[in-house]
């Protein structure tokens, strides 16, 4: 009965909004045009951060020549981005839910991103490499948390089936940002060099400042989004969005072996992809004799491919299931790509396209596996931990890659990356067998999972119904203490015909028709 009341109110509220009686102004937060605007702002929120993340990779030769650093110091620029996120991954959700709120939190993180990029550029202008590293640190504090905020906004404004589309669009915009960065920054540098007449640390500084304009743009989006969100809150009486993450570090001891293997796969795989892209441009120039533009283009192909392929693979993996097999395919493909790049002179476009496809596939198949292995109340901790050690792995592997390149060259570096991917492969194989032997559900097909979910749902319903029935029965058996029931009991014992108004079941039926 209580459900029926709720349902009526719900349909009332919804029906009222869509009914012809009430007219919505064009700026009402529920109108499609408004929501599209908010969607666009949400997508561009992360654009600046992803654009500036790969600035070092796009300008590797220039950074190394102007700041006079070797590859190990150059890769420290990536390591410093990852170091704060080892710890911050756990606090992002907490900061957004409890301390700042989504609106202020997004603005603060955007400011960190902007300020970080500005400090990075100032470091180049003043020829102080330590200042550049500090800038990357500040940038890192804002960057990853901004992604969490972006996701929270999406969940708060869009629900159900649209949410997948929104996440997909956000990811695509991020990838577009990285691609544009790879292909444009080199050109901007050459224009600035032409303008100034010489190349040096000041040329680099000005180029990075120009790149920082995208961060200002993202900050603008954050401010507008905060205003619109506040307005929507007032008009729709909805609460501020929350991440809903609960982090309890003591949950770590409950993590199963499967989950630790998933963590290992994550660390080793991403450690063989992102540092490689960071060093890739010069690799293609030196080994394959590509021009600077072609090298930038091929370095960005991984991102270009993942923009359209991620939603496709997401759909595929959701439909088919069997996540471990997909992860296995992705890891083997990446291994093949690295071996091709290391031991042959074959056209690297092939290897890089394979890498792009494998990277998209792995992202779609790996992260959902965590949700299958971990109970819901520990999910926040599990994802936070996964991101934390992913960042730790990236930081360490970035620096190791730089050192290896300086002392041993590109062949050894590629062998190192292949070894990382092989370690990931070992983890996948072990995960498959552990999952098989313990009767786990990671490798179920989607149909089987749906069937079992339905069975579980009907069972739960059945149990709920039985419980309610038991409660009703118990209530009926319990004696009622009022006069009406005493008279009823006495008269029924006598066998007398009860008048209509004494019949309890008739009165309840009358009540019911009024409610309908």
């Amino acid at each position, binding site marked *: 009965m209580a459900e029926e009341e709720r349902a009526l109110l719900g349909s009332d509220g919804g029906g009222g909004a869509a009914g012809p009686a009430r007219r919505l102004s064009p700026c009402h937060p529920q109108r499609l045009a408004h929501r599209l605007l908010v969607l666009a702002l949400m997508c561009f929120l992360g654009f600046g951060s992803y654009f500036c993340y790969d600035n070092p990779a796009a300008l590797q030769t220039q950074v190394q020549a102007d700041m006079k650093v070797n590859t190990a110091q150059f890769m420290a620029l990536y390591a410093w981005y990852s170091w704060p996120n080892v710890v911050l991954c756990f606090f992002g959700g907490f900061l957004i839910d409890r301390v700042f709120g989504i609106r202020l939190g997004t603005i603060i993180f955007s400011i960190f991103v902007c300020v970080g990029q500005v400090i990075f550029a100032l470091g180049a202008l003043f020829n102080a490499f330590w200042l550049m590293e500090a800038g990357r640190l500040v940038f890192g504090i804002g960057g990853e948390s901004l992604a969490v905020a972006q996701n929270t906004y999406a969940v708060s404004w869009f629900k159900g089936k649209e949410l997948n589309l929104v996440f997909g669009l956000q990811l695509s915009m991020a990838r577009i940002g990285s691609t544009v960065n790879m292909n444009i920054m080199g050109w901007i540098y050459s224009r600035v060099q032409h303008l100034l007449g010489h190349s040096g640390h000041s040329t680099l500084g000005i180029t990075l400042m120009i790149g920082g304009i995208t961060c200002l743009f993202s900050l603008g989006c954050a401010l507008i989004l905060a205003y619109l969100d506040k307005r929507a809150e007032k008009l729709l009486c909805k609460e501020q969005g929350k991440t809903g993450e609960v982090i309890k570090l003591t949950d770590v001891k409950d993590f199963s072996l499967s989950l630790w293997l998933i963590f290992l796969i994550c660390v080793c795989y991403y450690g063989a992809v992102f540092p490689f892209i960071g060093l890739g441009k010069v690799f293609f120039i030196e080994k394959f004799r590509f021009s600077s533009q072609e090298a930038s283009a091929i370095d960005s192909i991984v991102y270009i491919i993942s923009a359209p392929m991620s939603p496709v693979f997401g759909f595929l993996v959701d439909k088919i299931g069997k996540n471990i097999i997909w992860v296995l395919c992705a890891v083997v493909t990446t291994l093949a790509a690295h071996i091709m790049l290391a031991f042959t002179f074959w056209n690297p476009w092939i290897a890089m396209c394979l890498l792009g496809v494998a990277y998209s596939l792995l992202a779609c198949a790996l992260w959902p596996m965590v949700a299958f292995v971990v109970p819901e109340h520990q999910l926040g901790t599990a994802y936070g931990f996964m991101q934390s050690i992913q960042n730790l792995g990236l930081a360490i592997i970035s620096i190791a890659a730089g050192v290896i390149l300086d002392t041993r*060259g590109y062949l050894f570096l590629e062998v190192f990356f292949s070894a990382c991917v*092989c370690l990931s492969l070992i983890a996948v194989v*072990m995960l498959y067998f552990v999952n098989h032997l313990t009767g786990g559900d990671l490798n179920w097909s989607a149909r089987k999972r749906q069937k079992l979910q339905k069975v579980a749902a009907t069972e739960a319903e059945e149990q709920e119904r039985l419980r309610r029935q038991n409660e009703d029965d118990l209530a009926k058996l319990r004696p009622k203490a009022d006069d009406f029931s005493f008279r009823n009991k006495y008269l029924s014992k006598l066998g007398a015909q009860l008048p209509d108004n004494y019949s309890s079941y008739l009165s309840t039926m009358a009540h019911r028709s009024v409610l309908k």
Partner: protein
Amino acid sequence: MRQLLLLAGLLAAAGGREVWMQYNPGWNGSSVNLLHVRAVGPNDTLHYIWSSIGAPAVLLVVTEGTSSALHVNWTQLLSPTPDGAIRIEPAGSVVYSTAVVFTKVFEYSKANVQEEVFYPTYDLSDFSWDSVNRTLNHTALTAEFVGGPATDPSGSFSNGSLAFRVTAYETSGRDETLPSLLHTANSSKVEFVLAGAAPRGNSSWFALEVATVEEAGVVQRLRLARSIDDEYTPTIFETFSLVAESRNDSSTLSFLQWKATAYGSQAPKREDSIQCHSGSLKAANWTLPRSSIVLAYFGEGVGSTYTISAVNISFGGEDGNIYEEKRYLSWSALLGFGQPPKDTFSPLVISIMAVALGTPMVLLVVGSCVVLFAQGKRYTEYEPIN
């Protein structure tokens, strides 16, 4: 005859040679430099005669047997007609001879991509050289020819010098300093060093002209080998080889091999690398400087009976400022007899790949066995009820 000697040379490369170095044999002065390096193997002897008389050059003479000796007629050598002043006795034991001459150093600026503005050439035959006796090291088997232009109107060499460092090898091995060339007992290293000389422009490139002299019946080729292995010279994948092939059977008689890089510091690291390009090998029919030892050994017929080819090797950075900052340029090449040595993968790389690729395979096999065994066990645990 030559094939036999090449085979013997291979054995010597594996086994090693005994190396003796002599400075100005039969001459007491030190105003001119002639360094005789004798590498004696089990069946043959290699004579390297390095000299800075005229243009700096090296004469490589291969003789069979272990008792060949160098005879130098110093008065004739230092005269305007040095033909025949240098002889290897016994003359019949000489199997093969070749010479490499470093003739000129060009300096040009590449301020515009299309135009190259050439500064006045440094002609190496007009240089004055310090005595090699001071730099001769019998234990390390190295010597250094250091010099500067006799007349220096632009004053670029006031604080600098140009040098050729020579290293002889007794066994095969690999250098410790970059570019870590792999050498055999059949080879010697020559290192061209430009230190402290002031560049005459803002974005100067330098080019060294290297000429080779070959007998008739021998063809010179410039080969570019691209390898996937850059373990020993990080980020450098190309190796140039100037090989002398016999016309009859295309066997490689001698080689001058170098990696496509130069380095900008005394203790070079990867980031000190300077780009190195090679021009194409051209026939050079001009006359070599008169007082060169090449003329002394090969005689007047050097222009006609012997073929002279030259190649320009240039060094510089993308924007040309690299030498301006570092004021140091070092380029190494290996000169030797027989086949040039080939780099192979280091055992570390092979072992890492073997372990990395092998472990998942092993795990897959072991895991499948475990799964099958466990499944078999499960089935046998069930017993029919009736």
